[in-house]
């Protein structure tokens, strides 16, 4: 019974990791851009929510509605103004530039908000829970987060595979130069992908900021969960990313149960095991 509980809690946490990963997977899939600043953008979204909540006296969950379009717009501008100049055949320039961006965001946040750790308060929902069966109760907040993850990932899956915009994203991912011949402006398509990625980041960033403390230096720790979930899941489907996040969450929960110090280690070990046995991930992209 205790193990069932641990697995359920791990699955729920995995939804958060999947949200971190979905944005990373999207932009890597479309433009081969490895965004080292992704974790810092998650933290930035949390601070944006903090400012919004202070200014408008909103509930954090309501603040998402404001923060997500703002980070989406930031993503579009960032891609058009900066990152489009770095994407190309070589993976290294975007890696270096986003690494620089990561440093800038961390230090900018440190300057503005100090190194104190902060938290978003959502009120009673934080501690509310309901019994599932005898001996297992589920927190309302983790459940809301998990449902949000499923809705977002399902939404991205539909956007990507059923809509005209998704068609443009996939075509550009397949062959950017031929996509231009279809009248698609790569710079715009890439910027849209980054905008979607950062809108998802906002949801993930706010939801995790309700659950755990954050400070300006936390970005890289968020980033690594995202990376690991992407690699475990593979790039073939958004649902793979969700599975990747869940594998990571469950491994961490199990590790923590065995020994509290093993929580992070167990997650990394699960990641390394997948990398060793199935480096293409659980749901790899089908090669044309």
């Amino acid at each position, binding site marked *: 019974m205790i193990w069932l509980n641990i697995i359920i809690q791990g699955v729920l946490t995995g939804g958060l990791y999947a949200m971190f990963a979905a944005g990373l997977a999207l932009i890597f899939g479309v433009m081969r851009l490895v965004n080292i600043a992704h974790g810092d953008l998650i933290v930035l979204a949390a601070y944006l929510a903090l400012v919004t909540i202070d200014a408008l006296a909103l509930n954090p969950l309501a603040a998402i509605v404001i923060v997500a379009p703002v980070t989406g717009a930031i993503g579009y501008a960032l891609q058009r103004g900066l990152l489009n100049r770095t994407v190309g055949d070589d993976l290294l320039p975007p890696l270096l530039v986003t690494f620089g961006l990561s440093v800038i965001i961390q230090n900018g946040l440190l300057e503005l908000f100090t190194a104190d750790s902060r938290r978003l308060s959502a009120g009673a929902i934080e501690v509310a829970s309901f019994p599932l069966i005898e001996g297992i109760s589920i927190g309302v907040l983790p459940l809301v987060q998990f449902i949000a993850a499923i809705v977002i990932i399902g939404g991205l899956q539909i956007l990507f595979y059923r809509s005209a915009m998704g*068609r443009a994203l*996939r075509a550009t991912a*397949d*062959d950017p130069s*031929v996509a231009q011949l*279809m009248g698609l402006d790569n710079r715009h398509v890439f910027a849209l992908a980054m905008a979607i990625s950062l809108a998802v980041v906002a949801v993930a960033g706010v939801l995790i900021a309700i659950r755990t403390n954050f400070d300006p230096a936390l970005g890289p720790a968020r980033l690594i969960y995202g990376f690991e979930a992407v690699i475990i899941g593979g790039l073939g489907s958004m649902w793979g990313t969700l599975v990747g996040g869940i594998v990571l969450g469950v491994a961490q929960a199990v590790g923590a149960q065995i020994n509290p110090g093993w929580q992070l280690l167990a997650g990394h070990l699960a990641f390394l095991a997948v990398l060793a046995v199935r480096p293409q991930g659980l749901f790899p992209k089908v090669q044309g």
Partner: protein
Amino acid sequence: MPEPLLEVCALDAYYGDFQALFSVSLAVEPGEVVAVIGANGAGKSTLLNCIAGTIKRRCDAIVLGGQAIGDLPAHAVVARGIALVPEGRRLFPSLSLEENLLIGGQLGRPGPWNLARIYSLFPALSERRHVPSTALSGGEQQMAAIGRALMSNPSLLLCDELSLGLAPIVVRDLYARLPAIVAEGSSLIIVEQDIAAALAAAKDVFCLQEGRLALAGPSAALSREAISAAYFGA
């Protein structure tokens, strides 16, 4: 003399320091089929890519309907009505056949072509519409690539080596559809290594040799000797 649809005026093209085209000029009239022939590496594909905008060129080197469009990027050239069927077909592998066609029509340029018309031009495609483009035969892929370009309702269609890697009977079948495309008002520039196919389909022929125009004239008036001299060099 009708106003030409497209004029290429003293076009030079470069890959880095290497010059691929030297002062190439040609004109295409509305509703006309023009063939560009030449040996491997003569600059035929480069010429098409310059017209389509995937290679940098001088602004006034490409004139469409009296307007210089040489400074436009490829995605803006399509919007003006020039579509390219790229060499080797290059369908999008993660899209189905129909999605490939739809992406070709995503600009929504008005004109005669839509999904239904493409399927009636190439009936073989219609039952394969939901198949991944990678599962199509070579001939089907070429039809899909032509259909994808037509979906943008171009006034000028550029076809790069339609016959590449295809069986002669499939090539003959493809060329038999070209008059139907011209009948809808598109002009065509066909690049070919298969000289017989090019001569049969086109009114005017231009022969490139090492990046320079070696011969130009109506296909009916050119002797095989003249063509072979222009093709291989004297």
